């Protein structure tokens, strides 16, 4: 039990009367001192009795709005207190969050039941700043005497906890047609043997070989001179081209398209760092190029690229998103033009000029950031190089042309695509529709992968792609056809 300043002032008044009564030998003052003392003890008795009864009739609940969030993602905590009988005390029920919870206002963390009241509820917005398990201790209940003489704090109610996940994708699927790829990102076997570190092969000594390369242990074992070959270390320039336009913001907080693309980009940075490969980073959003880091292979260079990757935010949501473009390729236009050639209907005559001119198409592409980034920067890279394009399937014409642009000069293009259907909120509620959209995506990916010196992969949350593949499997089972042994569970279009 805590006593207040008013209690001590009342004690002082009683002591003052008692002291003066003793000094002046005045019984009247002594009676007054007795009155103050009796009043304080009676008030204390009332507080003790009422506080025990109040706590016995009190029910406290606290509940988090979600069981799992990512760091800095807002969630709400609801705190409620109910009395089975009214109390003459004032109650303040307060959340006791862990120190890693931020954004919790003083007003939002406490609910009050005034004397005579029965219940109170408060909802507080907060966020977890550190990944891990977040435990809300049972709330504290502070009971206050309306006279302002006493207060007491007890702990009542249940624990509440939730998981705070890191703001990174937790199940990154990289593959083709639903199948995960096994090769590490960025590995580039040279198929060349020579001096190096990693042992590759053993061959007989031939005239002209350097004597220092003779493997004496193998020579003794095989009774003939042998040379040990090693994997040749090569340096290959790699350029990362990251799209962080508005469409890359699709997905839940911490698991957006850009987060998955970032994971892939970071994997390439790690690989390039371990192999000392020169690495460049270019990023573009809907407004244009935002990051230009020329190739380099110093320690600080890799660190700088990592920092810039972590700093990337998915586009300005205020800007208009690029519209989905699935039929804007010149090849499509040419095919239609051939079909309408010689046609005499008004419809065919009207469309023919639009299909014959590709100028508008070229202008449109040149104004797009991803395409212009490739044109501006990647052509300056030393050959051979690897261009890694990390984007989504929103603007397929742009991706298609960007991939085509630089494979011509000895470069190899790796395109990592995040399928929009696997990131849109509620897209998986209709699995049949989602599967149809995924098939369109897969057809586009295959068209890209069919280009010379271009490899295309899908990047998606593993737990979201699984239901779509289940639809395909069940469709195959019902039709009685076996799944494709080479193309994953999706058959070729």
């Amino acid at each position: 039990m805590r006593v207040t300043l008013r209690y001590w002032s009342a004690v002082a008044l009683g002591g003052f009367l008692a002291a003066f009564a003793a000094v002046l030998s005045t019984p009247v003052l002594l009676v007054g001192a007795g009155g103050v003392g009796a009043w304080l003890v009676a008030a204390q008795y009332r507080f003790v009795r009422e506080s025990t009864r109040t706590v016995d009739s009190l029910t406290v609940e606290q509940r988090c709005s979600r069981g799992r969030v990512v760091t800095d993602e807002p969630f709400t905590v609801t705190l409620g207190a109910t009395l089975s009988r009214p109390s003459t005390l004032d109650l303040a029920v307060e959340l006791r969050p862990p120190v890693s919870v931020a954004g919790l206002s003083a007003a939002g963390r406490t609910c009050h039941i005034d004397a005579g009241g029965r219940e109170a509820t408060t909802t507080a917005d907060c966020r977890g700043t550190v990944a891990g398990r977040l435990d809300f201790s049972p709330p504290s209940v502070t009971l206050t005497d309306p006279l302002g003489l006493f207060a007491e704090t007890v702990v009542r109610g249940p624990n509440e906890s939730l998981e705070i996940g890191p703001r990174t994708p937790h199940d990154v699927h990289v593959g083709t047609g639903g199948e995960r790829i096994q090769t590490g990102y960025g590995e580039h076997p040279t198929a060349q043997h020579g001096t190096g570190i990693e042992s590759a092969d053993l061959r007989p000594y031939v005239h002209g070989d350097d004597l220092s390369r003779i493997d004496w242990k193998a020579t003794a074992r095989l009774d003939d001179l042998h040379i040990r070959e090693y994997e040749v270390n090569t340096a290959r320039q790699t350029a990362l081209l990251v799209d962080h336009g508005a469409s890359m913001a699709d997905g839940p907080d911490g698991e957006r398209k850009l987060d998955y693309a970032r994971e892939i980009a970071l994997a390439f940075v790690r690989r390039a760092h371990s192999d000392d490969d020169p690495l460049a980073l270019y990023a573009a959003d809907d407004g244009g190029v935002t990051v230009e880091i020329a190739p380099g292979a110093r320690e600080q260079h890799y660190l700088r690229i990592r920092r810039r990757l972590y700093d990337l935010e998915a586009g300005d949501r205020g800007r208009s998103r690029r519209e989905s473009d699935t039929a804007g390729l010149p090849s499509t236009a040419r095919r239609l033009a051939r079909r309408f050639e010689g046609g005499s209907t008004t419809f065919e005559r009207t469309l023919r000029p639009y299909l014959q001119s590709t100028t508008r198409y070229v202008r449109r592409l040149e104004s797009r950031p991803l395409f212009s980034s490739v044109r501006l920067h990647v052509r300056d890279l030393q050959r051979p190089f690897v261009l890694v394009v990390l984007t989504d399937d929103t603007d397929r014409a742009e991706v298609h042309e960007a991939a085509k642009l630089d494979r011509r000069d000895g470069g190899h293009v790796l395109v990592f695509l995040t399928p929009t259907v696997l990131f849109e909120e509620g897209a998986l509620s209709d699995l049949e529709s989602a599967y149809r959209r995924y098939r369109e995506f897969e057809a586009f990916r295959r068209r890209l992968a069919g280009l010379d010196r271009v490899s295309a992969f899908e990047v998606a949350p593993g737990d979201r792609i699984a239901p779509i593949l289940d639809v395909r499997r069940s469709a195959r089972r019902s039709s009685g056809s076996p799944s494709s042994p080479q193309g994953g569970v999706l058959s070729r279009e």
Partner: protein
Amino acid sequence: MGVAGVGFVLLGGLGGALGAAAVALAWYFLPVEYAFVAGQVVLAALVAPGGVPTAAPVGPVPIVGVEAALWALLAASLWDVAGTPRATVVFGVLSAAAGGGAWVAAASGTATWAVAGALVCAFAVAAYGLHRYELVALGLVEGEGS
């Protein structure tokens, strides 16, 4: 407050009226215990030997009336907030025991300082006992499965 004011005027005339005004101001602007203590001080000033001279000797009735009014102030404060008479009854019993005992002891010739010391000790023991009881009742004693 009216009863106390009349009592003060009967006991001290103009001086009593001034004292009653002081008590009324304390009651209005300060917590109730300040008004009670102010009333006790004014009463002592009016009735104690060597206090404020009065025009005519007065009997015990005004003194009892003033005391009853002042104690009623304290009792009312407990009654209002408690909503039940239990705390007020406890206050009445303790008041009778403390006030009456002090008066009787003083009247019987016991030294006033001794009676004052006994009162202070008795209330301190009672307050501490209630404090310990509350800790046990609410499960706040350390090591008690908390």
